[in-house]
């Protein structure tokens, strides 16, 4: 089987990003990594590869800077990488259209994505991609089980009310949630091997009907500051405050 995993380059998970003058982001000292939810998607793909054999291809839409993250992804085990060479100004639907073109060329059985990119927090692209392909989807997976013939996936999804199980017949798209697995660290040989794995670049102008950019961030701002909290001497003081506020 063939699995395509979408990955995005995002700021390291615990970075504190500030707003610079003019409502732009101060990104000078920020380090990047693979979006944590995409790391789970990569891990899941490699586990499927290990348990039943699969070709795993990672794909990103972005500039030359994303090479590093594609290498780190491949160091975990995937076979090759594809980068759609696009500037940063694309919107979710355009990125989904780029990924859809890659999916059409590669014809995978399964696309695995993260459920959310931790920078823009859109949680849009995977569902858009599934729609563009006309495929079924399963969102926020905490468990994926393939049927013995590899044609059907039973997916347990984390939903507001608890857990929901759905069945998708492949080809299908599944997004990873935090409890899907525990991503491995790349080994040193893995890192060395990654450097020799193929990395294809698809020029943006090969994407048919990528459409106009219709969604963009026009400015960032910090959250309104919060007054410093009060340190309490003991439980008595807490009880006093709670009753003052009529909370008890």
């Amino acid at each position, binding site marked *: 089987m063939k699995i395509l995993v979408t990955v995005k380059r995002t*700021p390291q*998970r615990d970075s504190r*990003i500030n*707003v610079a003058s003019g*409502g732009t*982001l101060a990104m000078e000292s920020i380090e990047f990594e693979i979006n944590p939810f995409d790391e789970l998607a990569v891990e899941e793909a490699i586990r499927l590869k290990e348990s039943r054999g699969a070709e795993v291809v990672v794909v990103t839409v972005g500039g030359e800077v994303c090479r590093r993250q594609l290498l780190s992804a491949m160091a975990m085990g995937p076979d090759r990488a594809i980068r759609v060479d696009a500037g940063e100004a694309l919107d979710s*639907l355009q990125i989904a259209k780029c990924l859809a073109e890659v999916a059409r060329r590669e014809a995978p059985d399964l696309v695995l994505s993260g459920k*959310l990119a*931790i*920078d823009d*927090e*859109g*949680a*849009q692209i*995977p*569902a*858009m991609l*599934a*729609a563009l392909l006309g495929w*079924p*989807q399963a969102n*926020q997976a*905490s468990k994926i089980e393939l049927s013995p013939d590899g044609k059907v996936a039973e997916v347990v999804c*984390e*939903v*507001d*009310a*608890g*857990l*929901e*199980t759905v*069945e*998708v*017949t492949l080809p299908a798209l599944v997004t990873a*949630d*935090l*409890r899907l697995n525990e991503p491995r660290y790349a080994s040193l040989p893995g890192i060395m091997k990654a450097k020799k794995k193929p990395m294809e670049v698809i020029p943006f102008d090969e994407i048919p009907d990528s*459409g106009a950019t*219709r*969604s*963009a*961030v*026009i*400015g*960032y*701002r910090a*959250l309104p500051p919060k007054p410093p*909290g009060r*340190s*309490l001497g*003991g*439980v008595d003081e*807490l*009880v006093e*405050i*709670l*009753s003052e*506020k009529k*909370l*008890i």
Partner: protein
Amino acid sequence: MSDVLTVMGPLLRPVSNSDLAAVGFGESLAARSGGALDILILGPTTEDNERALVHLGVRNVYLLRHADLESYTAEAYASAVVAFVKDHRYQVIGAVSSSSAREFFPRTAAMLDVPMASDVFAVESLEPERAVFTHAVFVGNLLAAVELRGPMSLATCRASEFQAPKRVEQVSPVRRVTVSEALGHERKRFVAASRTQSARPELTEAEIVVSAGRGIKGPDEGLPLVEKLADIFGAAVGATRAVVDAGWMPNEYQVGQTGKVVAPQLYLAIGLSGAIQHVSGMRSSRTIVAINKDPEAPIFDVADYGLVMDLFEAVPELIQAIGGARH
């Protein structure tokens, strides 16, 4: 073409404040565009819900029942919205940000080929062909103004940031819509849903939330204390990822970037460190109280009141003090 649609459903449980926030979001959009607001309920609902939703002052309440909408699937719900808007024109189609809307709204946006904004905090402006929404980014640490261009757009809203509309005496007409084509996807099947039964209030609806972190040590150590405290307050219980990952509480209790977003009157954070991913889901709470034995814990940066204490001393003391005050 300046009308607004709020999409809801499936709606078998009673209409919640979150559902009503979606109508409030629609109302604020319609007020800006000068158009009318309609509600579309997808799938089955109850007569009680119908009765509640006709008193919100909207132009029409549409009900779309269909065999493929009886149990929720993103594919069928997205196709239903697409089928409905073939005969109706809206400038913005909105819904409350929920696990289902997060899945079927972007699917709908791609099918309609229109832009979308996620988890909107506020409407900055709405003009023909252009909408600007506020949306939190970078794990809730910054706000972004997102501009959507075009005659139609989709948006989900953050429930805690919008108010339910006022109840009005006037009754909105209920219109039943039929769609003859199949809506489901032949390769998708709903299998089962499981939810934990609890007598406590719903996490996202509760006035008071008591949340537990890894500091509670385990299901037999600190958890009973936290639950007891929650029961005295009539509160919902919440948890950090660490607690859910350890299997001490089910996944639907997780608060944060990957869990629920809550904004109660009082949030009691017990034995949790206050990682940004957790804070992102509770930062808008009216009053935040933190109990943690580490004075350096980041939760104290967002807490209105901080108590540096061992929870195994503080919580029993608190239970005793307010247990007496309450009963």
